[in-house]
Structures are given as C-alpha cells and as structure tokens.
C-alpha cells in the first residue's frame, strides 16, 4: 500500500487533535465571554452600550470577530472530520446509540448535530449583526424582538455544544476526574443559559417598548 506507507507515521493526527482541542476551548471561551457581555443589558442599557463602544474604540470587535470566524472555520473542518460521512456509517452510529442507550454516546451524536446547526445559525447571526452595525442596545433589541425564536434556538444549541465539548475534551485528556468535570460544565452551561434567557427577555421588552 504505497499511499498509506508514504503518508503514515507522521504527526498529522496529533496536530489535528490539538487543533480540535485549542480551537474548541477558544470558541467555548469566546461564547461564554460573549454571553457575559450580552448579559450587561441586565444591569442597564447604558452599561451595554458603553461596553460595546469600548470594544469598538479599541478595535477589539474588528479584530475579534474575524479572528473568531477563522477559528470557527478551523474547528468546523477539523472537529468535523469525526463525523461519519458515509450513509452506512451514520446508520451504524445511529443504531448503536439507540441500542446502547448510553448518555455520553447520545451527547456525542447531538454534539455533531448541534455543530452543524451552529454552522448555519451562527453564520446568519454574524451576517445580521455585521449588516446592522454597530452593536447598540436599540439595534439588538429590535433584532431580538423580531427574531427571538431564532436566538432562542441558537442560544440552546450553542451552549449545549460548548458545554459538552469542553466536558469531552477534559475527559479525553484526563486532566480531572470525569464526574466533577461533568458537574462543573453543566453548572456553567446552566448559568450561561439563564443569563442568555434573561438578557433575551430584557431585550425583547426594550424592543417592544420602542
């Protein structure tokens, strides 16, 4: 097998695994920061706007957004290599998950599904935000009021993917025992979901008041 002999035994698989790990952790970190930023609306519209202006004046948004997009692209291509592409393989995994009724196997199946959903939804989200630039409480509130269902799906799907993704990386690298890590990531995910939902409610109210 010439093709296998010549391409084997290098470190590609290791690098891919490390890129999956780093890009995933960066994205989860980004998402959680993002949610904290959005949640400033809970304090006041002014805080929200001031934070956004601050990010603008120091060009953090202009660097940050493209940077995150590039990382997300890498993450999609590289983490996506795990997703079975052949129909037969997909059937095997599906049947396997149904037979095993094993939580961590199911969460992985959903991990793949949510990943695909995020690819589509997050692209729409970025496009909406960028075309409606700048980010101010009023613009966000309007968007939120008209598309709350869209944001609700994106919020749930995103937090799920990030939370379980981080959990799985910790499990794979074994830095901490499994049970506590599962607990911690679930708590973080719950907090982020709560913050996100609360921010949504406030924004929709503001949007309704205009």
């Amino acid at each position: 097998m010439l093709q296998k002999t010549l391409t084997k035994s290098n470190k590609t698989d290791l690098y891919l695994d490390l890129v999956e790990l780093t890009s995933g952790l960066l994205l989860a970190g980004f998402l959680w920061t993002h949610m904290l930023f959005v949640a400033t609306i809970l304090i006041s519209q002014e805080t929200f706007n001031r934070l956004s202006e601050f990010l603008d004046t120091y060009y953090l948004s202009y660097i940050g957004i493209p940077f995150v997009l590039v990382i997300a692209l890498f993450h999609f291509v590289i983490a996506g290599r795990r997703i079975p592409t052949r129909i037969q393989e997909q059937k095997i995994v599906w049947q396997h998950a149904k037979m095993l009724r094993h939580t961590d196997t199911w969460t992985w199946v959903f991990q793949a599904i949510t990943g695909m959903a995020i690819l589509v939804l997050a692209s729409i989200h970025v496009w909406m935000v960028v075309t409606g630039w700048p980010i101010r409480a009023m613009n966000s509130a309007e968007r939120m009021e008209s598309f709350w269902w869209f944001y609700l799906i994106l919020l749930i799907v995103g937090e799920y993917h990030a939370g379980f993704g981080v959990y799985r990386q910790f499990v794979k690298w074994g830095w901490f025992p499994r049970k506590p890590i599962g607990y911690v990531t679930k708590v973080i995910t719950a907090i982020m979901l709560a913050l996100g939902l609360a921010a949504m409610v406030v924004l929709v109210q503001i949007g309704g008041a205009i």
Partner: protein
Amino acid sequence: MADRELTFEIFRYNPQKPEIKPYMQTYKLKETPGMTIFVALNQIREEQDPSLMFDFVCRAAICGSCAMIINGRPKLACKTLTNTLPSKIKLFPLPVFKLIGDLSVDTGTWFRHLSLKTEAWVHTSKTFDPKAQEERMDNETALRIYEAERCIECGCCIAGCATANIRDEFLGAAGINRVARFMIDPRDERTPAEYFEVVGCEEGAFGCMGLMACDDNCPMELPLQMQLAYVRRKMAAYGLGYKATQGVKLA
C-alpha cells in the same frame, strides 16, 4: 421477584446458512434464585433448543468469552443476574467481531491481531538468567501494571465504542490499555518513538472520541478513561517534542 416468567428474545443467524435471514426468536423460562444469563441460556439450550449457539468457558468472569449485548449493553452473561433485569430480556451478539452464529462471536482473532499490532510483550535486550535474583519493581508500578493486566479480553469496550463500530483499524480501549501497560513497565525498553508509531495516530490514542462507552461498560471496571488519557498525553508530549522524520517524497 419470585416466580417471574422471563421472556428472552434472542438474535438468531447462522452465517453458514445465509439463506435463512437473521430473525429474533422468543423463549420463555421460569426465573430461579441466583439465575444468571449464562444459566438461563444453558437451560434454554438443554430444554428447548439445542441449536442455540453461545460461548462460555469459566462462568466466573475470568475467560471473557461470554460477552454479549444484554438489553442494549455489552455485558458478561455469566456475571449478569437476571434479577437485575426486567422480565423481557433481549440478547444480541457483540458487534464489531466476526459472527460465528447466534450469540457467539470470534473475539480471539481480533485480540490476536491487537497483540501483534501493539507487540504486546516486554521488549528487552537482556537475556533471561534463571539463576539470578528477580529484579525489583516498586509496589506502585507493579500495581498499575496489574490494574491494566486485569483485562479479560471480553470485547465489551470494543462493542460499546461507536468509533470501533465504524473504524475497523481502531485499537479501542482494550488495545490502548494494553499499550499503557507496557509503557508503564520499566522492563520494556521501547522508546516513545516506537510507541508513537503504534498509537500516535487515529487508529490509536487520537482516534478515541471520548464517548466513554468503554469506561462505562467494562465488566472488570478497568480505569479505561484514565488509561486512554494517559496514553494520549504521553503521545502528545512526545509528539510535540521531536522533529518529524524525513520520509520518501513522491514529487
């Protein structure tokens, strides 16, 4: 619990007779105290259907030959008490391995391939001197080796692993655990580079997606998560520290 009637639904297929398509056959049986799936299967074979195929040797969770899918989960038939299960019990052979017939699979060939591929023996340049005193090993290392050696090669971790179900070449938790066993062993003279050859790839440590079906289903309760993570970390540390060897270039 007393006097339950158990309903077994058992997968039937004989690759020798491909004209009969796979089907599920139902058997009914009175539950007796302390009954295991192994006991129940023997009773079915003796009293109802001598053609039923399944494996066992030790009936004491030592030989690893009786593993099968019991109500969806890979388990040892001889270690699974019927009173831990509902009265409807579904049995399938382990996936991944070659099907011999009904519930019987050939795990031997698979594990032999694994042993050869991972070269599962102590690699040493020393010649054995039967008169010399045994070399000493500290207790902690000995215990860690022993822990990994408890694997009975039942194949539950392989059958439960989604990765192993779709990637034929994947070594699975049993394979990576085996490699970990030799990595820990101070008598083995293999270099990290040699280990990297075997497990520093998608077929080895980096193919694992961390689904933990292995860890959750190992009947011997081996610490598989930690073994997988140990090998992954070792291989990553080594892989980041050395320069890729120059290979033959096609163009």
